């Protein structure tokens, strides 16, 4: 059965800290892994990863995929209170991309 596991489920840090969020998965015919930021609105797309070892960066956020070990990490450096959100990892798989599984999310709280 396809599944996505995220850790930690909850994390509290102070502004300026660096955090690493983890996502491991099992999926048939992997196609891509996606990261979203969930706040009080529709989830915001962050990254889509399809190849191992290629880091994607956007400002203070970066992510990398390891297809051999079946996991991805999302790093946030110099965290700000505005980074407080739930970070969702999702994996797309299946012969036609018809399987799409979301993880439970990591709730990040950044304190001033």
């Amino acid at each position, binding site marked *: 059965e396809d599944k996505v596991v995220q850790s930690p489920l909850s994390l509290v840090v102070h502004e300026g800290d660096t955090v690493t969020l983890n996502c491991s998965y099992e999926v048939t015919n992997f196609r891509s892994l*996606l990261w*979203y930021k*969930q*706040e*009080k*609105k*529709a*989830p915001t*797309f962050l990254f*889509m990863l399809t190849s191992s070892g290629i880091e994607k960066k956007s400002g203070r956020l970066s992510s990398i995929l390891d297809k051999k070990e079946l996991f991805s990490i999302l790093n946030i450096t110099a965290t700000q209170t505005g980074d407080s959100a*739930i970070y*969702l990892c*999702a994996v797309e798989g299946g012969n*036609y*991309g*018809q*399987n*799409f*599984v*979301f993880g*439970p*999310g990591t*709730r990040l709280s950044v304190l001033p």
Partner: protein
Amino acid sequence: DTAVSQTPKYLVTQMGNDKSIKCEQNLGHDTMYWYKQDSKKFLKIMFSYNNKELIINETVPNRFSPKSPDKAHLNLHINSLELGDSAVYFCASGTRDRTEAFFGQGTRLTVV
């Protein structure tokens, strides 16, 4: 014991047809949502239902109509399907303050 389940998982249909996608959640949440994922993997909210009351409708064509027979179900009806309706549709349930959402596995709709 799936938390949020959608059916069908994928759907191929002809232009002009009317179709429905069902969604059920067993989490006891008071709010359910429908999202459309576009070709760039962005998730766009379509509807939000809280205690049987529609509280968000993000400029969605009126060919789309949500139906909620009870708090645990939010079905999506689409009339006169168009090619541009082809996408993956996600159902989610969560809390009223929208700080978290649990997603279904998605329904890949293809209109031919």
